[in-house]
Structure formats: C-alpha cells, structure tokens
C-alpha cells in the first residue's frame, strides 16, 4: 500500500474519531437547555462532557493538520473554497470553547442562561454545517483546472447537502442523547434525555434513508463497493441502535450509534476515493490523493510520527474515559 493511500485512510480515521467523539459532545451541548431545567441539572449535563470535549475537539485540529501536512492542495482548496461555511464553524467553536469555562464563573441566573444557550447554538451550527460540508465532498464542487474553487457560498447549499446537514445534526443529537442516558446520574435529566433520544432516533432513521437514497441515485456512491458495504453496515447499526434505545439498553445503543457515525464517515471517504475534492466541472480537474499530496519524503516522516503517536493518544484518551466512567450526579459536582 502506498503512503498516499495510507494517509487518505489516516485522515478518514481522524474524521471518524472527530465525528464519533465530538459528535456526542455537540449532541450534549445542543441538549443542555432542553434536557436540563435547573442550574444543577445543566451543570450535570455539562459535566458529563466536561473532561472530554477539549480532547475530542483536538481530533478536528489534528485532522486539519494532517490534511495540511499530507495533502496541502486539499487543505488549500477546501479551506479557501468553503470559506464562509468554515468561518461560521470556527466562530461557533470559539464561542463554544469559552462558554464551558465562563459559565460557572459568575453566580447569576441570567449569566448562566446566556452561556447555556451559547453552548446550545454553538454546538448546533457545526453539527449542521459538517453535514453540508461532507455532502459536498461526495457530490463534488466546482473546481477549475488550477485546483481552485470556482463557486461561492451558496453553491454549497443544495437540497442534497442541506439534507446532509440535517442528518449530521440529528445523528449528533441522537448520539449525545444516548451518551447522556449513559452518563447522567440525575433522574430528571435522564428522563428527558431518553425521551429525546428515542424520538430523534426514529426521525434520524427516516432522514438518513432519504439522504442515502438521494446519494445513491445522484452521486458516485453506487460505483464504490466499499462505500456500499459501509453504508449497509451504518444502516444496520443505526436501526439496531434505535431498537436498543426503545428497549432501554443504552450502552449497546450508544456503541451502535458510534458504529453508525464511523461507517457514515467511511461511506463518504470511500465514495470519493481516490479523489479528495471532486470537481463537478471536469473529472480531470479533481484533486486526488496523488496530485494533491505532499512529497514521498514528507509522507514518510509523517507516517513515522503518526504511527508512533496515535496509539499512545488512544491509550490516554481511553484512560480518561475509565477515570470518569461514573455517572455524574448533582451532589458530586467538582467543578
């Protein structure tokens, strides 16, 4: 296997890590004002992701860095092309990051409510926009002969990509509800999280079916066996997850929703392989894992670095989940 393919897979893995991990904390963020009604309940909700969200977000930063290092043209075309969409995501991430920290620092109901809603909105926007962005990955976008994006912000918004946004929004919401059902130790919060989880799971399934059907008939999805296999696994996992949610087996449900997220991501990456940015103007102009990549020397260096560090990262991030495996209750709020 050549290093270009390896790095394509590694970037895919980083996005899987990002969507799986940050997925549930976007979900929990969106649910904060809805699943929690009192200050204490909301603190419980936030504390379920308290020790994790920052480490989860680094998966995105790393994915960005990896794309830059391994496929500089992909990085340059994507971020200059999806400029305003990315700007909104960045702005949301900025607000979100400080909201968690600022919220508890002033003991005023208005202050706390403000930051609760800031957490909710700043979790919602990226949850939605990632779906739009990722859907554009499989449909392709106008890219000219010089690898430059030739559309504008509104080119990115089509019925299919907007539907994709709704899919990731619901997927992360559902994933977050399942996480909360596992981690919250407060009865009122649990009750609401389970209710939202059950309902959003069903809606999510319906919307996902529509999006996949859309993708099947209008994109390159059907010509990739790996993408078809991945989408089938994702579908089975999703249905299983929702059934588990209705039968109150939240542990299994959460794992199954994680599998769903992972295989939806695999679907997207497999559907565009070996391209990294598909040109809708001329297939010849697409960016591929070869014409967009770094030199073999750089890829080799980065491969050594990544293969040494990623396993260690996995070990201490898993350790983090073990340390904070207990449910979060109102009488033991340490922060």
């Amino acid at each position, binding site marked *: 296997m050549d290093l270009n393919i390896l790095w394509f897979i590694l970037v895919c893995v980083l996005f899987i890590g990002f969507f799986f991990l940050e997925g549930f904390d976007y979900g929990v963020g969106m649910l904060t004002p809805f699943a929690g009604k009192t200050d*204490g309940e909301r603190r419980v909700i936030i504390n379920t992701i308290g020790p994790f969200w920052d480490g989860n977000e680094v998966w995105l930063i790393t994915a960005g860095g990896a794309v830059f290092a391994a496929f500089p043209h992909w990085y340059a075309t994507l971020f200059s092309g999806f400029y305003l969409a990315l700007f909104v995501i960045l*702005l949301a991430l900025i607000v979100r990051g400080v909201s968690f920290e600022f919220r508890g620092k002033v003991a005023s109901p208005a202050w706390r409510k403000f930051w609760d809603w800031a957490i909710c909105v700043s979790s919602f926007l990226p949850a939605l926009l990632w779906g739009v962005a990722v859907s554009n990955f499989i449909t392709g976008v106008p890219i000219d002969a010089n690898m430059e994006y030739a559309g504008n912000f509104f080119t990115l918004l089509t019925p299919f990509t907007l539907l994709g946004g709704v899919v990731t929004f619901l997927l992360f919401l559902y994933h977050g509800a399942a996480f909360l059902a596992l981690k919250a130790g407060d009865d009122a919060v649990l009750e609401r999280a389970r209710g939202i989880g059950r309902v959003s799971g069903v809606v999510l399934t319906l919307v996902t079916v529509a999006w996949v059907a859309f993708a099947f008939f209008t994109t390159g999805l059907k010509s990739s066996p790996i993408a078809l296999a991945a989408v089938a696994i994702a579908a089975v996992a999703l249905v299983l997850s929702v059934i588990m949610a209705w039968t109150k087996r939240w542990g299994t449900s959460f794992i199954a929703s994680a599998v769903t997220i992972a295989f939806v991501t695999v679907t997207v990456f497999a559907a565009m392989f070996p391209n990294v940015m598909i040109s809708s103007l001329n297939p010849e102009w697409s960016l591929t894992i070869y014409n967009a990549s770094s030199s073999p020397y750089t890829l080799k260096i980065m491969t050594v670095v990544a293969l040494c560090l990623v396993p260690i990262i996995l070990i201490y991030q898993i350790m983090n989940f073990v340390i904070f495996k207990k449910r979060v209750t109102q009488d033991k709020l340490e922060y």
Partner: protein
Amino acid sequence: MEMVLARIQFAATSTYHFFFVPLTLGLAILVAIIQTRYVRTGDEKYKKMTKFWGNLFLINFAMGVVTGIVQEFQFGMNWSGYSRYVGDIFGAPLAVEALLAFFIESTFIGIWIFGWERLGKKAHLACIWLVAIATNLSSVWILIANSFMQNPVGYEIVGGRAQMVDFPALITNSHFLYQFPHVFSAGLCTGAFFIMGISAWHLLKGRDIDFFKTSFKYGAIAGFIAVILVVGIGHFQGQHLVQEQPMKMAAAEAHWETSDPADFIIFAGIDQENRTNSAEFKIGGLLSFMSYNSFSGEVKGLNDLQAEMETLHGPGDYIPPVAINFWSFRLMVGAGMLMLLLALLALIFQGKIEDKKVFLRLMPIALFLPYIANTFGWFLAEFGRQPWLVYNLQTLSEGISTVVPASSIGISLAGLVLVYTLLMIVDVYLLVASARKSPELLDAPAGKEGSLWI
C-alpha cells in the same frame, strides 16, 4: 483590498492569540511547581495556592485555546497560495503539534480540572505537569513552523513549490534555536509578573498576607530567572539576526546607511518614503557593539540591503515598515529592561515585601510589561519579515488566496474582531474578578449553585 484585509486579519488574530498564550505557557509551569510543593509537604496552603492560581490559569487558558483554532485554519482560508507552496514543509510541524502536544494538553487539562477527588495526589500532580510540558511543546512546533518562514532551511524547490528534503535541518533551524528559549522565558516571565502583580495588590490591601507573600516569593524567584534569560537570549538572538535577517535588524534600528562603526539611534523621526531619518538622537558606535560586542564593525544599512535584494530578486521594495519595527523594538527592549530592574528589586524585597508600599503599588501595573514586550516582540518578528511571506522565497502577493473575495475576508475579519473583542472583555473581567477574590472564598464549590434558579 483582499491583501490589506487578509493581512489585518492575520495580524489581529495573531495578536489576540498571543495576548493569552504566554501566560498559559508560564503560569502552567508555576502552578505545577506550586502543586508539587503541595504534594511534597501536604501543606493545605499550597493546595489553596494551586487552586487560586489554577483557576486564573484556566480562565486564561480557554481563550488561548479557542483563538488558536483560527490560527490553524486561516493559512488555508486566506493564504492558500502559501499553503500550496510550502505545505509540504509547513504542514508537518502543525500536524506534529496537534499529535504530540494538543492531545496531551487537552486531555490532561480535563483530567486535572475534574480529577481532584478521583485521582491520587501524585497522579493528579502528573496531569498538570503534562499540561505544562505539552503547552510548551506546542510552542516548540509552531515556532519550528514560524522559523521556516523566517529562515527557510532543509528544502528544495521542485516543480514550483518548496519540498522538504531534510527534516532534521527543519527542526534544528538556527532561527528556532534562539527563538524558542526566548519565547519560553518570555512566557515564564509573564506568569511570574502576573503572580507578583496580583499578590502585590492583595498585600497592599493587607489581606491574606501569608498566602500572597508566599505566592509573591514564587513569582519573584521565577521572574528573576526568567527575565535574565529572556533579556540575555534576546541579546544573542539579535546578534544572530544581524547575520540571518539583516534587513529586519536594520529596520529595527532605522539604520539606513551602511557604516563602520555604526551608531545606535535612541529616537528617530523616520521617513520611509525618502529612505532616511528626519531626526536622530544617537550614541556613537553602540550599534556595532550590540551587533558584534566590539565598538567597530560594519553594520549594513537598509539602502544597501535593498540594493542587494534587488540584485537577487529583481526590482521591488524589500524594506519592511521601518517605523513599526523601530518602535516595536524599543517598546520590547524598554519593557524588558524595566522588568529586569523590577525583578531584581522583587527578589531583594520579597522577604519583607508587605512593608514596601511603593513597590507594591508598582507591581500590579508592571503586570502589563510582559504583555507589551510579548506583543511588540512579535510585531518586530513578523513585520520585519515583510514583504516576504517566506523569507527570500515567497512574497505576500504570491501567497494570498486568489478565490476568496474581499467581501468574505471582510465578513470574517469583522466577525472575528467583534467576537474576540467581546470575549476578551468578558475574559479580562473574569480574570480581574477572580484575581480580587480572597483565596478563602474559593472552596465554596460549584455544587452549591444548584438552587440558583428553578
């Protein structure tokens, strides 16, 4: 128009970012040292100190993290020409920074915040040390990246873009070897003056004397060491830059004409258009001395350097904005000298610091000195690089994104400046409010807030 907006955006976001970062770098180490003392002695006072300074650390930390996210992505957004041209080299340190530093930092900060009761004392202490090491490790990698822009090494131009051919050369770039210790000690200096400034404020009020006297002592010792390092390394770094980026240093001195011996200009009226100074107040031979430790020695002037650049790269204006460099350099060095004096006095006074009322009044103001030095130090580093994006390799106009319209950059610039400014106000407000609280009030846990509203 795009160029102007993109440059303002980079300058603005970087300046905001580096307003928070040095304190993170330095205070992390100091909090870790204080907590080590707690774990060693078991003395509750040090636990309280860890919590008090740790709380301030966290408020500041959050802003450093979120403003850093933009930094990583704006190369692709505004400078896609640059990203294509040097991505083969520049992307690698950014990716390593994330893999090696950000993951440790972000994971263990979470464990540290929430782990006081869950972990053993030593394991919990290890967390803050990992955070302190990782934050400084992240500065290693971003400075390696920046050093390539200042002094490109270990590359070859292949097919119209720079390709990495020597990774060890990239990470042992001479520019980086001076820059990192300078930034590291500047961070420690910022943390130390932060602790001394706030402690002095409390001591002046006569509150929690023991707590803040001990805190002040830690600040004084760390501050003294750090300021000696930052000034000393800065001196050698300047001498090195005379060789490596003569244009930058000549601009920092408003030194237009080559001379031997060269005079040091204290103040000048700078006339960039006519490439001369309209007024000068100078000390004979001192610039030669600063450059070579000897009162003779030729120091090249901006006009000769411009001529050299034209021979190498063709016609163009290669002189950076001289006034910005000149005054940034003076602000940085001036602040550094003041800090040196204050740190020395702090060390002498710290045993009886509560009696030194005038000094106690000065130190809360001196808290801002490192901020001035940090900001203007970077102004010098980055403005001094102009008009190059990558020194001697790529100019700004070759690096900008060609597909992003001015309106988009304008929107993002306005949005970022607005949000950053609002958040910075909130953050500084929280820092001030938390810094003024008595450490005794800290133990009122967040859990008691449950009844705040229904």
